[in-house]
């Protein structure tokens, strides 16, 4: 009983009854994924922050309409993605994704690789990233949602506002293009 953090459904039910702390916890639990999804769409940290913040506010306002048995995250992401798309339409830009500067890699939990291995890994990543940046907007967004943010097919479908079948076919097509691109480089 103690120690188990309340799950989304429980928090949503409490937030619906006006419990501000519960909504706070929901925001805390989903802010990173909401922000990153918005960032992929807008390509700007400022726009992404605004989109995510407004998305959380609109979701709060619409909680009354939310079915409690439904999963919260895809629903939230759909609202945030919509906010992000609106901002992107007005800003009209697409920023290329970039690698983090070498040495600032907080995610590597492994023992430090040798300098040679690190350089090779970096080159491989750079080549893959260039191929990803060369994809069409639609393809890149699907790849980013699935592999960079780690969304499910279903969640990706709500983010791009298309059926799940489209996510499947788009992912397959994008992976095929990446394979072609990288294959060309090897020859």
């Amino acid at each position, binding site marked *: 009983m103690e120690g188990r953090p309340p799950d989304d459904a429980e928090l949503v039910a409490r937030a619906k009854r006006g419990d501000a702390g519960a909504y706070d916890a929901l925001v805390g639990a989903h802010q990173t994924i909401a922000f990153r999804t918005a*960032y992929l769409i807008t390509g700007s940290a400022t726009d992404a922050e605004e989109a995510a*913040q407004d998305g959380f506010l609109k979701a709060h306002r*619409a909680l009354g309409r939310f079915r409690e048995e439904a999963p919260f995250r895809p629903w939230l992401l759909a609202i945030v993605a919509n906010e992000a798309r609106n901002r992107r339409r007005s800003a009209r830009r697409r920023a290329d994704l970039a690698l983090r500067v070498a040495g600032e890699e907080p995610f590597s939990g492994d023992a430090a690789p040798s300098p040679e291995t690190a350089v090779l890994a970096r080159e491989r990543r750079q080549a*893959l990233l260039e191929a990803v940046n060369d994809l069409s907007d639609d393809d890149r967004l699907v790849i980013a949602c699935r592999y960079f943010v780690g969304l499910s097919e279903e969640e990706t479908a709500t983010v791009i506002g298309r059926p799940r079948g489209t996510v499947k076919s788009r992912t397959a097509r994008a992976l095929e293009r990446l394979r072609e691109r990288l294959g060309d480089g090897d020859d």
Partner: protein
Amino acid sequence: MTELEQALVDLGRHLDVPPTPDLADAVRRRLEARPARRLVTRRRLVVVFALLVAAVGAAFAVPQARTAILEWLGLRGATVEPVATLPEAPVFADLGLGERVTLEEARRRVEFAIVVPKLLGPPDEVYVADDVPGGRASLVWGPDDELERSVHTGAGLLLVEFEGELDPALIGKLTGPGTSVEAVALGGAPGLWIEGEPHVVFYRDPQGEIREETLRLAGNALLWERGDLLLRLEADVSREGALELARSTR
């Protein structure tokens, strides 16, 4: 997962993504700035839309038209409250439209897709208010050769939009003798055309109180549904002119 997919996951961990800002803090502050009114509102109110008909309007006196009006109101679970006298209303009261923004900003601020009559082109001024769940958008067109300046709004045409669905927003209308209320159909969707002597339009707060600042006289107006939206067009135009404008909304 294929090797390529694994490489993509690895790439995702090495991308230069800006750190996540503390959204929880900002969201909490913005929610506190706007107390739990909405939630309270949703729980307490079941009435969606109230039309108060004072005395007996010309059309309302005809049983057939009255039935149509009541039927239409029934769709929205509304109540009709006959009242004996019209309240005093300042003619040039603040229109209570909310905050002035750009159309783009307004589209971001409300939860529904704002529609615009194609015949008019983009509005001259746009306002948003969050006094109804989902937000309320008001589009204003200035007077010109075709749109006369309304003595009630000072504008050529005023179009107010908000979600009618589950919203406890209450709009009331008081019509006196000399005002006709007529049921009209807009491509199958129900509507009401109010014409003649000025009528009183107001918004009610969640407790059902009529707020002074939203009480004002209104000219000819068309009220109609469009999907989840409820729209109210006010202008010194004919019934046909209003219907044509309404049909051109996209």
